[in-house]
């Protein structure tokens, strides 16, 4: 192995690691706020990548149709839950949130497909992020007070359903998008593409953005308060249902961004997301589903291990990455030892 290969592997590892870091953040965020171990995070990545690829190619992506359907089901859930106290203001808000916005996005997707990279990018993130809150309303909000295990099983169910929907709406064919830019610079023997740089910039920006959101905004603080103590947060007037939706909107948005970044680098299939998401998981769990900086560091480590093991033992790449999780879980278990773990 010479220096060039080494540098390539490192670059590859860091780029993948940065994507895993983004997903790891989303997972930490969702877990902290809702206690959901969010297995379907990877599906948002696949949705993001495929939506972006289709928009760029001038097609209307399936997610643009999926959004109004999700929103409509969520609307039915809300109407049923609030059936005894429906007011005009409630209907107006619901109508805008669950009918007007989704249909507007669908319209925009039909009109603006293939127009420009930037419009595709913005639309992708908007559509996929908008799926998050509706998904929370339908699948998780009715289970919000149940145990972590029930939520985990629900998350697995959601993963299955979203993968299936991905297959229906995007088909079994994989897609690859054009690079965001053809810009490239050489660092010594190593060419660094604009795409790689975009991945690093996006990761850093998102870290900064999340930091700003959680430290400087009331919404962010409400999310943190919910994470610390649900009941306590409710007692001081935070709508914990709302925080769950915000968390999933952020997670879906982060997933979409990761998908957009990934789409030009590798072919994405409807079910590619799961394994990518799980690697974000490995990172998030190394960080104990708690710390953002630690997640970032762990994600880079996972990316590097993966990139080196794909060079030395490519057949066993997945085996190595997932086996790695077990000692980590073990250490985490001992670290979080409390005297009584009742279910």
């Amino acid at each position: 192995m010479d220096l060039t290969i080494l540098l390539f592997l490192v670059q590859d590892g860091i780029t993948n690691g940065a994507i895993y870091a983004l997903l790891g953040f989303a997972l930490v965020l969702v877990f902290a706020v809702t206690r959901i171990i969010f297995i379907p995070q990877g599906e948002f990545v696949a949705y993001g990548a495929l939506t972006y690829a289709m928009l760029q190619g001038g097609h209307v992506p399936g997610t643009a149709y999926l959004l109004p359907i999700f929103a409509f089901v969520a609307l039915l859930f809300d109407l049923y839950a609030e059936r005894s106290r429906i007011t005009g203001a409630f209907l107006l808000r619901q109508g805008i949130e669950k009918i007007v916005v989704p249909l507007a996005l669908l319209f925009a997707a039909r009109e603006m497909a293939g127009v420009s990279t930037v419009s595709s990018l913005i639309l992708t993130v908007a559509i996929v992020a908008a799926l998050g809150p509706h998904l929370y309303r339908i699948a998780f909000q009715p289970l919000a007070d149940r145990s972590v295990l029930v939520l985990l099983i629900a998350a697995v169910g959601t993963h299955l359903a979203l993968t299936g929907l991905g297959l229906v709406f995007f088909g079994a064919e994989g897609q690859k998008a054009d690079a965001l830019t053809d810009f490239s610079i050489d660092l010594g023997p190593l060419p660094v593409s604009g795409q790689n740089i975009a991945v690093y910039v996006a990761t850093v920006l998102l870290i900064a953005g999340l930091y700003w959101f959680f430290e400087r905004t009331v919404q962010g603080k409400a999310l943190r308060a919910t994470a610390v103590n649900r009941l306590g947060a409710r007692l001081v007037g935070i709508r914990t249902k709302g925080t769950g939706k915000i968390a999933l909107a952020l997670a879906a948005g982060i997933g979409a961004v990761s998908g957009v970044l990934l789409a030009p680098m590798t072919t994405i299939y409807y079910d590619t997301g799961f394994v990518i998401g799980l690697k974000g998981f490995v990172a998030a769990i190394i960080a104990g589903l708690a710390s953002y900086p630690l997640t970032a560091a762990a994600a880079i480590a996972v990316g590097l291990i993966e990139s080196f093991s794909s060079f030395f033992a490519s057949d066993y790449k997945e085996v190595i990455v997932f086996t790695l999780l077990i000692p980590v879980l073990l250490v985490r278990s001992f670290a979080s030892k409390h005297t009584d773990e009742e279910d």
Partner: protein
Amino acid sequence: MTNRIALCLFAAIIILAPFIPGFPPFWIILLDNIGLAAIVATGLVVLTGVGGLTSFGQAALAGFGAYTAAVLTTQYGWSPLATLPVALAVSALAALLLGFVTVRLAGHYLPLGTIAWGLALYYLFGQLELLGRHDGISSIPPLTVGPISFHEPARLHAVIWGALLISGIATLNLLDSRVGRAIRSLRRGSTMAGAFGISASQAKLIVFVYAAVLAGLSGWLYAFFQSAVTPSPFNINAGISYLFMAVVGGAGQVWGAIAGAFIITELRDVIQRVMPALITDSALYEPIVFGVLLIVLLQVAPDGLWPLVQRFLPEAKPRRIPADAQTLTGRDLPVPRGSEILKVSDATKKFGGLTAVNAVNFGVKSGEIVALIGPNGAGKSTTFNLITGVLSLSSGSVSFAGQTISGIGQQRIAELGIARTFQHVKLLPDMSVLENVALGGHLRGRKGLLAALLRADRAEEAALFAEAARQIERVGLAEHMHKPAGSLALGQQRIVEIARALTMNPSLLLLDEPAAGLRHFEKGQLSQLLSQLRSEGMSVLLVEHDMGFVMGLTDHIVVLDFGTKIAEGPPDVIRKHPAVLEAYLGGAAEPRERSETVSGGAEA
């Protein structure tokens, strides 16, 4: 017994069904698929439904059974039947190794761990040359036993359902045994289990291996059913689907596993066979239907579907205790009456910067009732946890009958004869009072997993239950014996905990707020019971807030405040002790003659 007979009848009908003239062959295949899945799901019933360990990795464990059969028959020319013990042993060994790590994972880390190794094993199956990589192993010979070949579908069908019947009965036997009760106690956390000498990690490992052996059995049958083995039936989605079956059926019961396997397999068949007539590409919709169904089910019937069916079935008869049950042997007093049985020396417990218990010294003499009192947060329950080995001492020591017990672990301490109750009741609410109390006799039984599966444990079980029933009568709850423990009033549940502790046949009884939640009359009864125990030589250490109860009953009182002992002596001295009055009432209070009920509130 009726459950077993019903299971036999049901299996017999299914086994004989192919002999009905005109029985469609594809139904046989469908029933075989159901049977194979139900065997795995039965293992999950014990593992997840009863033991509370959620595993997404059962499919990978089934893979060990299938690949063992495939490799040994095709590459080493073994006879199919000879591979069965090896297949089960390989699955058990794999589970033992995986389980050794997995059962140590706490809370939600455990299911995540099973996803991790489930995925890793799947990828591994697909990469190993020995296992034929992604193409797998084909042309596995049909199952033969001596001259009989099970190539014919109806015969293999009988083998599969026979295996399910055996698995089901073994599982019913397991659940109704000493080991089964230990497994059930896992859901209440390791502290309660440990207090009765049950090693939680050992019990977890037992169920983990048991479930894996069933998965391995299913995989072994699958190899001969398909005549080929590929990695895909052992991937994480299959593992999810097995768990799904257990959840859909109702994860706590064998019938739930069969019902779940039936529903899911049938549903998958309908999607694959019927829906293409309605929608093209209907296979696309399978994961959507399953995912949506799982979520709907969690929202509307969180306990699964079987409990809904069960409502229409007759209630199980209460357990009979044979009159000729053996009596369990008692325990000699470890020290003569009046000499010190428990000695707490300079016991200190620090949680980070907080000193919860600070250099506390006291002793309990054999045949004495000692009370540990103090305001909320004084460190009483922490002291209990230090004595029983739930928490480790930061410094100091505890000795029992002259032997140092600090650091020897909860189970060893229980074995020496220290039994306890809990401030927050730790019973299994769905289990009957009798079974809950029988859990206390865990250390007085010997029979293990094998005896339970083969039902060679009946005499010992009868003796344990007879002892449990005796203790329930002794504490005055005989009429509630067969009710679910969760249906009793909280005060009564505390008394059930005392009966459970007594079933352990201890020499020292630790009671954490036994009188809380009792009515006046019941307190009188409890007081009488404890006096009687004392007269029989039992030593008692209790934490209690009801001063009337404490003053009238105890021989000696130790008072803690902010983790430090502030007074100690007989009730009359403590009643007037200035430091005690200050701790309870504040400095300004004048000593009064009748200030007995100082604080009635329970600690949060």
